[in-house]
């Protein structure tokens, strides 16, 4: 078995991650419990939806205007659906009106199915106009912003991969007087969410969101399992900076294998 040149270390890190995660899951199955830091954005979901119910205004969700289930942004989309599952359940429980503007056609059946499942738990039918499909590009930017303002949403959730529409939708939500929770792993759009929204999920937070909401020891174990690798990377960064300062390249050579 020969590993493709240039991907040897990547492969070893991936295998090491999988083994570590599995060890943490194994420990969880043996009764070990894990505590992770609180994520304020996810803790606030019920409060934000409760506020919308009190005001008699809808809750809006969108998963961003770029990517698809068959590209590198798919995990962000799935992470968004994980949060939508929690939002739709809370909406069904509190009888809040949910409106979803969805731009990804391949994600659409998943979004509809997730909402239906959530409503079924509380014995409710999903209102017909809950999910609106908006084609991507400028149409989505205008369409979603118009939906937010027309419906005067009281809660605006934006979780997924965003491009230029991030600031536009966040401002639309702000003008509508909505409390906003946003999350993306696209670093260029994070500053806009950070400045305009009430709560933000930064990068790895959105990947952890589904597991955080589930809260079972097994899935929390996989989040805790990331920590040894972050410490390892931190050490590698320090060593790398020192070596690069003295023009020593052996570490780089190993990592490029």
């Amino acid at each position, binding site marked *: 078995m020969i590993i493709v040149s240039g991907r040897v270390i990547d492969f070893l890190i*991936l295998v090491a991650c999988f083994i570590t995660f599995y060890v943490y899951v194994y420990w969880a199955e043996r009764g070990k419990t894990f505590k992770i830091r609180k994520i304020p954005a996810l803790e606030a979901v019920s409060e934000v939806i409760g506020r919308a119910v009190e005001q008699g205004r809808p809750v809006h969700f969108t998963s961003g205007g770029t990517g698809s289930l068959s590209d590198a942004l798919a995990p962000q989309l799935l992470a968004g659906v994980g949060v939508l599952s929690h939002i739709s359940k809370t909406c069904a429980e509190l009888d809040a009106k949910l409106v979803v503007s969805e731009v990804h056609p*391949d994600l*659409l059946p998943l979004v509809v199915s997730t909402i239906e499942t959530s409503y079924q738990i509380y014995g409710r039918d999903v209102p017909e106009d809950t999910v609106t499909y908006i084609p991507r590009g*400028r149409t989505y930017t205008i369409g979603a912003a118009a939906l937010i303002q027309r419906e005067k949403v009281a809660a605006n959730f934006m979780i997924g991969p965003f491009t230029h529409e991030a600031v*536009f939708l*966040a401002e639309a939500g702000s003008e509508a007087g909505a409390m906003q929770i946003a999350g993306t*792993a696209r670093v260029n759009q994070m500053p806009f969410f950070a400045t305009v929204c009430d709560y933000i999920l930064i990068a790895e937070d959105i990947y952890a969101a589904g597991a955080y909401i589930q809260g079972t020891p097994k899935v929390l174990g996989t989040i805790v399992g990331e920590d040894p690798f*972050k410490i390892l990377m931190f050490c590698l960064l320090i060593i790398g900076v020192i070596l690069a300062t003295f023009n020593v390249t052996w570490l780089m050579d190993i990592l490029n294998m």
Partner: protein
Amino acid sequence: MSNTIRRMIPTIITFLIGMFTIFVYYIEVPSSISDGSSTIISWGTIIVALATGYGTIILLRNHVRKIQTRQPGEWIYSLTIAVTIFVFPLLYFIAGDTSSIYKLIYDLTISNIGLAVYAIVFFSLATSSYKAFRARNVNSTILLLAGLFVMLQIAPIGAAIWGGFPILGNWILNVPTPGAFRGINIAAAFGLIAIGFRTLLGYDRGHLGISEGEGMED
């Protein structure tokens, strides 16, 4: 639908296809096998094409309902969308996408609207910048100063006031900013591997449209 069909079979398919594509990406395999992986990945394009049709039906259904109920202030826009959904493809099939009428409609509608949207984005940027650049505490003051230096680096007046502004702005853009971005990206990469692990082993079933916590007992 039985529990097995709804949960187990899709989880097994996810695991097998996921592991296969990972294997082919990292391990040198004969081209016949790597071609198989490319074929599986290209299925995504086919699914997107089919799903777009599904999306269009949902879009049309929502707007037809608004037209039928004559929703005040909205039905006329819904009518525009409904008509466009039929007219534009029809025009494409009759005249083709290189015909002058097709291009004219496109240039007079979508292009102009698009430009207008990008122009409006500027105002959103300006208002969000205003919100960000208020010195409320130490962190926002640092943000304000960093933003100020970067603006003075780009604007010609910066260099006219003091020659150090372009250097300072450049340093902010090229040293701390990419450093912070890379830190976020490294942490996100491990989050990405973790979500992949959970999806492959069926701990995360969001991709199956199964609500959180549902069916976690099996």
